[in-house]
């Protein structure tokens, strides 16, 4: 038995900032101090505070070390683990108060969070099935198989009000009910782990931190709809998630929690992995199933819906990773428990991936109905550099922006739709006054143009034409007629595209037009980018009165565009200037500005 557990995050974020090396050093130091029998090192999934990685938590006290470096390890081991003295200088700043060390759960980042889908992430070692079982894992499957009928399982989900977390928000129980109603010799349960929205990484975190929760939920789904085979469609760009899923499936098969005659009930279920090759459209349900079948990943018209004719022409369901991660908890705690959280039509919690101009970049799970202000200002720690909040972009390339005027809106599926955005998978990118909304819309459209599969004309050609107009606007070459044409095209593409990709592709343009039309007009009429982002519309100028002639800018300029002699004011040659802004960053006198 170990007296202390040292948890090191092995999620993608912390791994890329060196947590694997830290774990090695840690084990070596613990060995050196003769503590191997007393202290164990546990590799976990993501804790959510990716901005502060690599992260290390030492139990039983839950001491939270942030931004740990390899060279800090000997001190942590000899001071904390050997002598019991906390190394205060390495603690997460916010936990250090004059009154002593604050518990992690009382920090602003964690205080308002409620973790259901992420409950085991950062707590258990995802590569050890026993740890998952220790937190109540596979109990829900046991309960379902021995105490409940398939209809009762589906009713429980319906009562809980759980809706799909992948973006569209379709009631999960209803999806299962439709698939169960169709008789067939074979049915399939699919898991959508093809997380493709730029900025969203909650599914990856669940797969990396708690893969068994997904496997357990899929087996429950199999029992409910009458399927014996499941597929997880996961992107190949998630190597750690793929690896942990493989280990998890292997362990579950060894323990006979997957396979034939689970718990001796006669129910059989197995799961296989299918790796996606990186096409965004494969996150769309019909394209995903086509891809699993081994064909080119393209969507097909619905109906027939997957519940009737899905994978290999058989009734199938497709659920998102985060949706599945909620299900064992709903079975164990009851639908009332789940339905007690959230808003009237959106129950439970939602995981958001915070990114952009925000202090605490990372993953947060909050009850539905939490306001944007709470998420950005309290949990996210606000915007760095005292800048002003301009908008939040939710739902990635399918979503839209929430402007400052809706800062206090309770976030749920229906409220977001009402203001022209959408929940999407939960990416939440914070924009401040330095971000140009036209440029943001262009960024997402570039993404959809790139990712359009080309099967239907509105999406293939429509998005391309939209991007061309947006490019003209950002270059100051557009007319007001172009703007009208852009808006018209948006509605055309939205109404006529075959699948969700095209139907939602205009959203970033439409919602920025709705709230920030003045910015579009400034680009067109005044040939001016208010945020100073669009390069074609701005020029860098040196203030002659402030310039001391230190020559630093001239030396920095990669294009040789700055002329001037020592101790005399310099000048930027606008023909040569490539508008990289390097001179402005380097100037120590604040003499260079954007116009």
């Amino acid at each position, binding site marked *: 038995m170990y007296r202390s557990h040292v948890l090191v995050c092995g999620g993608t974020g912390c791994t890329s900032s060196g947590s694997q090396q830290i774990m090695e050093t840690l084990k070596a130091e613990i060995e050196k101090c003769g503590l191997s*029998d007393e202290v164990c090192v546990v590799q976990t999934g993501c804790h959510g505070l990716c901005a502060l990685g690599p992260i290390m938590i030492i139990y039983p006290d*839950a001491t939270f070390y942030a931004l740990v470096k390899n060279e800090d390890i000997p001190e942590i081991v000899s001071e904390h683990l050997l002598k019991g003295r906390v190394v205060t200088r390495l603690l997460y700043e916010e936990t250090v108060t004059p009154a002593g060390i604050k518990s992690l759960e009382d920090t602003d980042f964690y205080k308002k969070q409620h973790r259901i889908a992420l409950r085991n992430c950062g707590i258990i070692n995802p590569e050890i099935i026993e740890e998952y079982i220790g937190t109540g894992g596979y109990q829900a499957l046991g309960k379902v198989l021995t105490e409940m009928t398939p209809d009762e399982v589906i009713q429980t989900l319906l009562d809980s009000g759980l809706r799909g977390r992948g973006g569209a928000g379709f009631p999960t129980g209803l999806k299962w009910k439709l698939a169960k109603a169709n008789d067939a010799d074979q049915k399939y349960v699919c898991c959508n782990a093809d997380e493709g929205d730029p900025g969203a990484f909650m599914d990856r975190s669940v797969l990396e931190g708690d893969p068994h929760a997904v496997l357990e939920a899929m087996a429950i789904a199999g029992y409910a709809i009458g399927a014996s085979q499941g597929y997880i469609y996961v992107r190949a760009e998630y190597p750690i998630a793929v690896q942990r899923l493989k280990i998890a499936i292997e362990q579950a098969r060894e323990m006979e929690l997957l396979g034939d005659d*689970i*718990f*001796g009930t006669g129910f059989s279920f197995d799961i296989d992995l299918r790796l996606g090759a990186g096409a965004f459209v494969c996150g769309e349900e019909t394209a995903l199933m086509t891809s699993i079948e081994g064909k080119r990943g393209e969507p097909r018209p619905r109906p027939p819906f997957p519940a009737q004719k899905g994978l290999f022409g058989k009734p199938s369901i497709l659920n998102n990773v985060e949706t599945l991660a909620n299900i064992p908890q709903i079975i164990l705690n009851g639908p009332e428990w789940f339905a007690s959280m959230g808003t009237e039509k959106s129950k439970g919690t939602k995981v958001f991936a915070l990114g952009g101009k925000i202090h605490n970049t990372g993953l947060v799970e909050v009850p539905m109905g939490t306001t944007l202000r709470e998420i950005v200002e309290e949990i996210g720690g606000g915007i760095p550099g005292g800048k002003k909040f301009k908008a939040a972009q939710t739902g990635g390339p399918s979503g839209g922006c929430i402007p400052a005027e809706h800062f206090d809106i309770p976030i749920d599926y229906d409220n977001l739709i009402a203001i022209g955005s959408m929940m999407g998978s939960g990416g939440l990118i914070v924009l401040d006054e330095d971000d140009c909304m036209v440029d943001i819309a262009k960024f997402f459209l570039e993404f959809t143009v790139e990712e359009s599969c080309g099967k239907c004309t509105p999406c293939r050609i429509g998005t391309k034409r939209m991007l061309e107009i947006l490019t003209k606007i950002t270059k100051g070459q557009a007319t007001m007629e172009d703007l009208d044409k852009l808006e018209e095209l948006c509605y055309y593409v939205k109404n006529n595209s075959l699948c969700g990709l095209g139907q939602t592709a205009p959203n970033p343009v439409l919602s920025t037009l709705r709230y920030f039309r003045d910015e579009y007009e400034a680009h067109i009429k005044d040939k001016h980018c208010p945020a100073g982002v669009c390069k074609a519309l701005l020029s860098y100028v040196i203030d002659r009165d402030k310039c001391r002639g230190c020559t630093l800018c001239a030396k920095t300029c990669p294009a040789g565009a700055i002329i001037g002699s020592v101790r005399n004011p310099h000048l930027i040659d606008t023909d040569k200037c490539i508008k990289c802004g390097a001179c402005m960053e380097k100037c120590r006198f604040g003499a260079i500005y954007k116009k």
Partner: protein
Amino acid sequence: MKSLEELKAIRERMQSQVNMRDGGHTATRVVVGMATCGIASGARPVLTALSSLVQEKGLVGKVTVTQTGCIGLCQYEPIVEVMEPGKEKITYIKMTPEKAAEVVERHLIGGHPVENYTLNAADIK
């Protein structure tokens, strides 16, 4: 796995381990002095004994066992302090793994401090 009992057995075996990671919000804190003086007089086996017993007896979640630095009474090390909410702190001195086992049994489980090992019982001048 062919029965729920098997699952339950694994769960019970793993529970105490995983429960340790429940946030450190437990009611009773058991603190072992682990400065140079404590370590030199044998605090380490006391700490491991306490920690193991707490886990074996299923007290994880109710009792946290941790270390601290020098308490200042070096001649009485190894020192173990038991802090229960709303009660006066009990300080045990000159502890051994055997005495620790007794403290777990009688104090942490039974609720009655083992008087003759405490600082109060020692004749301090």
